[in-house]
Structures are given as C-alpha cells and as structure tokens.
C-alpha cells in the first residue's frame, strides 16, 4: 500500500502588484504517492510553477499564501522551520527547471557545481576530493553523457542544450531523494533530444523508484510517462484521472479544448482553439474561472466556483455539469 508522499490541499497563493493583488492559485489540489508518477498539464500562466515554488518555499518576496496546506511526508511544509526546510530542499525534493542554461551557474565549472550539491546534502567528513570526483563521473555516466571527464572540466557555455539538461538531471539525482519535480524539462530542446532525455528520466525514475511530478505543455510527452494526470487552468485544478482515461475521456471543457487543439501527426486538421483569453488574475471571473470561455455554461457557473470532486472511479473534475445534485 503506497503511502501518501505529497498532498496539496486547496492552495491559494497570490502576488502583490501595483494594480492590486494577483490571485494566481485559487484552490490547487495535488496528491502524489510514493513511487507514483504524476503529470500536470496546463498552459502558461496557469500556476503550475507557482505551485511547485510554494512547495519548495522559493516564492518571490511579493507572494502571499492565503490558505491551504502542503503536506510532505506528513509535515506541513508551509509551517516548518528553517532547518527542516533546508532538509526538505537538500534531501527530499529535487527540481529540474525548464531552461538548463539559466539553471547552471555560468562562472563555475560543472564539477564544482555538482560537488557543491553533494557536499550540502550529506555527511562528508572524511571524504576526499577524489571520492567526490569519482561520484560525479558515475552520475554523468548514469545520464548517458559521453566523455564525463571533459564535461566535468567544462563551463556550462561549452555544452549543448541537451548536455546541460542532462547535467541538471545528474545534479538533481546526485543524492537520494523522494520526489523529483521536472518543470518543462525538455521544452527548450530539440525533438530528438527531448525524446532521449525523457526516456532517460523514465529509466532512472523506475530504477530508483522515485516519485515524479512532470509538468509540461507537450501533452504527448506527459502521456508516455506518467500514471496520473492533473489538468490546471487559471490557478485551479480542474481535472485529474489516470493517463489513459484522461486522454481518451476528458470531462472538463478546458481539457477537451486542449486535446482538440493539439495537432495530430495523422493529419485531419485541428480545432480552432479555445475562445477568449486567460483571465486577469487581479480581477478574475466570478464563479468558475473558465466560464467566459466555456461553450455550455449553466447559470450556476457564473456564481459559484465548482468544487473539485470525484465523479467517476479515480476521475475528478471541477465542473458543475457533472454533479448530480
């Protein structure tokens, strides 16, 4: 029986700006069990990265957490102290970011950066430089980087995008972790490299039995990878289902619209997108945040926000159309 590793309940987060408070997250729900692979799909601005930043408490200074709880291994991460937070960041959760060039420090060589991570996360008294170096080489071999010695002695600018992202993956996995968060890890890479990197992450994750949260806009990338998919829109979790179920039977109109807009390799055209635009978070729409863009709304949709409930076996959605009340 897999235990609950991460649980995010009804998270509300906003940012203070000159025009007012921008209420980005408006009730985010997420659960990840040990060893489970979870995907989050949603377009830019929907709050996926904000949610992950809240989990790791790396939000900018003008962010405000209004409500909600984030439990990691039973502890509420929003309330833990500095020491426990450091432990969380150094030993429990690892994150891979979208832009590997920005994630690596340009003025340090790769070996320095990897060794820094190893040093900060485990007891290293008595360990010598050679041992660290050997570990680095093992790590780079694990991420299928040819010629690890050369890579270790290079600066980030001397490496290609795919190699840099593999280095970031190696850094994320340098020490044992419970959870790996991959925030659009392959969006900036070529398609053939994307494929290789995703396969690599999948192999490593399965070998080490890690839990993963994969965030991506590329629906196909998510499909081949995760067990369960969450769909986010405008700071809300709007649907969750097992991968196969979500892609064959999406319930929420946004999820349907998203899948219809994706071009298919078999041709046949694709839809005209979803009408309207992403809402202004300072003055969000009342009730369900998707209602201005939805084709068949009920009168209730404008007034009340739909709760996020299971309407079928393991298939949750936040939409008034599916509640039998």
């Amino acid at each position, binding site marked *: 029986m897999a235990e609950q590793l991460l649980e995010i309940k009804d998270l509300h987060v906003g940012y203070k700006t000159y025009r007012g408070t921008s209420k980005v997250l408006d009730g985010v729900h997420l659960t990840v069990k040990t060893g489970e692979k979870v995907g989050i799909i949603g377009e830019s601005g929907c709050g996926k990265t904000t949610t992950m930043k809240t989990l790791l408490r790396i939000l900018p200074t003008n962010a405000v957490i209004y409500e909600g709880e984030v439990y990691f291994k039973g502890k509420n991460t929003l309330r833990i102290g500095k020491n426990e937070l450091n432990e969380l960041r150094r030993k429990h959760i690892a994150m891979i970011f979208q832009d590997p060039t920005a994630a690596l420090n340009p003025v340090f060589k790769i070996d320095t950066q990897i060794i820094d991570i190893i040093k900060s996360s485990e007891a290293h008294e008595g360990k010598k430089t050679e041992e660290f170096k050997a570990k680095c080489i093992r790590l780079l071999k694990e991420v299928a980087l040819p010629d690890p010695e050369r890579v270790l002695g290079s600066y980030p600018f001397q490496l*290609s995008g795919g*190699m840099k992202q593999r280095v970031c993956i190696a850094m994320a996995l340098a020490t044992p972790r419970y959870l790996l968060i991959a925030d659009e890890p392959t969006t900036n890479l070529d*398609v053939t490299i994307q494929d290789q990197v995703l396969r690599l992450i999948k192999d490593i994750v399965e070998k080490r039995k890690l839990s993963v949260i994969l965030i991506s806009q590329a629906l*196909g990338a998510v499909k081949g990878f995760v067990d369960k998919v969450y769909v986010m829109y405008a700071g809300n979790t709007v649907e969750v289902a097992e991968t196969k179920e979500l892609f064959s039977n999406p319930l929420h109109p946004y999820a349907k619209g998203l899948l219809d807009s994706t071009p298919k390799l078999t041709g046949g055209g694709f839809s005209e997108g979803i009408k309207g635009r992403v809402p202004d978070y300072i003055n969000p729409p009342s009730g369900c945040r998707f209602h201005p863009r939805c084709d068949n709304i009920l009168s209730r949709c404008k007034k009340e926000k739909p709760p996020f409930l299971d309407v079928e076996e393991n298939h949750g959605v936040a939409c008034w159309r599916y509640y039998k009340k």
Partner: protein
Amino acid sequence: MGETDNILVVENLKKYFKTTFGTVKAVDDITFNVRSGETFGLVGESGSGKSTTGYLIMGIYTPTSGKILFKGRDVSLHVLKRPKNIKKDMSIVFQDPASSLNPSKTIGDIVGLPLKVHGLINSSSELIEKVAQLLETVELSPERFMHRRPGDLGGGEKQATAIARAIATHPSFVVLDEPTSALDVSIQAKIIKILMQLQQELKLSYLFITHDLSLMRNVASRVAIMYLAKIYEYAPARLFFHNPLHPYTKMLLSSVPVLTDEEEALKPRDVKSTGEVSSAINPPPGCRFHPRCPFATKICKVKEPKFTMAEPEHYVACHKL
C-alpha cells in the same frame, strides 16, 4: 518538380558565416521551389539552417552563392538593396513575438508602418481605418488594441499583431519562421486558423518553417527536411508522413510525442533517436547524418548522397536507396 507557377525558386543556395571559431556553414547548397498558393514546409532541428534559409530569402542575409528567384526575378541581394516593390510583396513573421514588436510603439503604429513606408494611404484617418481593418482580420478588436503597447499583450495577441503587419501591404509570399513555437497549444490553434484563412482570402503562398512535425502535417502541402545545412528529403505531405524514406526523417518522426494510438502506429519503428547534432563548422564528411544513422555504410562516410526520385514528387538523398 513542376515548373508551373513557381512563386519562389531557390537554387544551390549557400550561406557561410566567418566566425572566430571557423566558418559556419549554415546553409550548404540547397534547392527547392514554392508554388503559387501553396504552403511549403521546411522542417528541421537546431543547426539545420531552416531559419537561415528564411532570412536569406527575405534578404536579411546575403547569399554566399546561389540564386533566389522571386516571381522569376533574381533577388539574391541584401534587403537594403532590393527594389521597393519586391519588399512590398514579401514579408516575414518571426519566431519570437516579444522581440519582433518594438516595445515603445503602439499596436496601431506597428501595423500601420508598412502602409506608411509604401505610401498606401493618403491621410491619417485613412491609416486608422486600414489598421483597424487589419486588426479585425487577425481577430484583435481595434478599440481594445489600437493604442496598447506590445508589453500589455499576451503571446498570441503579439503574434497576431505581427501577422497583421506582415499582410498589411497585401504581399503574395510570406515566410513564417516558427510562428507558433513560443505559444501555448490552444493559442497556436487560433493563430494557425487565422493564417489559413488569410491564405485563402489573400491567395498567399507560405514558406512554413517549424520543428513541430505534428503541426507541419496539418498545414503544409509539401515538406522538405533539413539537417546540418542540407535538404535530405522532400515530398508532398502525405507521402512524407506515411512513407518516410530518409533515416533522419524516420528518427524525427519516431521522436514526436503523440496522443492517440493511430499516431503512434504511424511512427516508424526502425530508427530510434540517438546522438546529437554535430557542429556546423566541421560537419561530418560525406552524408552529414552518418554518425547518427543506424544504416550507415562505408560510402556514407565518404561521399555525399545525391537526390533520387523514389516515387512521383518524392525525392530523397540517401545512399541506402
């Protein structure tokens, strides 16, 4: 290759850049043509030279050698030397919507500039009218957007502005350089719809450059694939996707993340993605794909393959065939 009505012909085009590290061969002897009214797709990954090809056609770069013929006229010059009526007839939509619009100007100014440059309007009220019309064709409401600055717009709206600017002078040919790569998928759908509608209404010919094969399948009528500055296969879209012949085409197709089982079935099984693109300064000798090709033989490392016609309209450059 049909001779009927080619709006653009590219012959043996080369572009080499001299840098401190060596000569970068960005485009190395490519030949293709775009027929009037069609959408010709150019697909490839980073380092393939597809964007450089688009810039060469527009005159942003001057060719090192080779010819570019637009409506039969040789226009292989830098854009500053091209005659004005050519500049009026060709336009480009860039990849990054944010930097293709001047952040200090309003949308009205940006879209109105080509009209002013080519003297297509006689008064400022006529300018406002025409700009409003253009904004409406790209589904941007003039009241809301005329006086906004690009910084206030979302990615899709910025790209729509860039499209409005590109068609302002009623050109016959538009280069679309990854027009939707920076956009979310639902907004991409909107922009593509607008582009297709415009193509029909204004009888435009498009050179559509992208790395997204699923997108290409749905917009292009003919597709060419580029790898390290050379074209290796080109064919009508249906043949390209249902019967890919070149190993790189197959590798690229097999790497595409897809959603449905039908798409999965379409992906080639015999080539899996491996390796990385080599440097364009010292490309591999012979066939440039040979270091990553599972079928590479001795001749591939030595001799560059020539184009052969595998089936009508379907050309491949590969020693295996």
